């Protein structure tokens, strides 16, 4: 039930917004998140954006794990 889908914000109109994931658009709400802008990657749960995703943290994790493998020669 706590499933949340990463989406990209395409349009904002007050607390209503349109978000897209893999080419599918859906209407979502921004009641639970401040300072959302068009182009932001957000997590959407039961129709509400609940957090902005931080790309730099994601990239850092992928980099560290990739390096783990390279260092060990896998």
């Amino acid at each position, binding site marked *: 039930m706590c499933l949340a889908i990463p989406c990209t914000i395409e349009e904002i109109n007050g607390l209503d917004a349109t978000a897209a994931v893999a080419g599918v658009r859906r209407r979502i709400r921004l009641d*639970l998140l401040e300072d959302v802008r068009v182009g932001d990657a957000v997590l959407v749960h039961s129709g509400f954006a609940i957090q902005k995703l931080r790309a730099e943290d994601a990239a850092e994790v992928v980099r560290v794990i990739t390096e783990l493998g390279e260092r060990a020669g896998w």
Partner: protein
Amino acid sequence: MVVRGFSDPKLVANLAAEISAIGQMDVQLMEVCGTHTVSFAMHGIRSLLPKGVRITSGPGCPVCVTSDSDLSLALQAAGMKGVTLATFGDMMRVPVDGMSLLDLKARGADIKTLYSPLDALSMAEERQVVFFGVGFETTSPGVAALLREAERKGVRNLSVISCFKLIPPAMRALLQEGGARIDGLILPGHVSTIIGTQPYRFLVDELRVPCVIAGFEPVDLMMAILVLLRMLSKGKVELVNAYPRSVRHEGNSQALSLLREYFEPADTEWRGLGRIPDSGLAVRAEHSDMDARLRFDLKPSQVQKPSGCRCADVLRGLIAPSDCPLFSVTCTPESPMGPCMVSSEGACAAWYNYG
């Protein structure tokens, strides 16, 4: 997109090799989130782990932990003339004394399943709508937003049966009284997105259990296990946030303040764990006109437990689903005897579906 890479098989293989390199271990880790239950099963994560590393599922499936007496409130409201009961889909099939919401609907009760709580608002413009609210901290702020919208728009036909639950008090009850062996906890990434990391401090400071907050992709899950195993092998007890792309130390303060405006902590009953102090959410007195229990004078009824169903033991991590005598014999997803088989996020359904 931000999540690219988190299902990369090569990275998963890197992590699996790191985990094997730690050496032989005998540990039992627990996840406490239905979405984790499904992810672990669906991605076959257990098959990538050394034999001595076991992952159990705790009380993290909202449908599963909802007590029969709470469910009886929803059945009562759904049976009232002129009332539409709205809820999330998974709740429909849980039987209480042989009767589910779906059975009531088949007999003509007006019951709607929603994707978003806000869908209840337009329905309530024309008729009396009761929202049956189950779920954890990820879900309840959206229902607080629903109540605020109803107030703003002057929609007076909407009320909520609040059966929302809080994860940290359940963790305390589970560790202190649950009886299962738990060497490390995999904490729910989206509950943590809302509440942040601080509410879990007691798990490490007081109860001395290593904890990792984890995301839901294969790389997230393997990373959480690696971090926990490293802590265990070195005798360290820490709280690690392994899902920083979504979980901030302070959580989502806007969602939390909206939640606190409409709800307050209350004692509540969990299937499997019993009554836990301040582990649920009740509608605040200032907004009691939207509390369906008061509006319709709903009273929980005493219910018979289905004979032989061991959901309560599964939810505490005491037994694996396949240890229940009913599992896949008389209890299947098509014909479930208990909620852990009803919900697709239940441990029993996940074991049955992904075996």
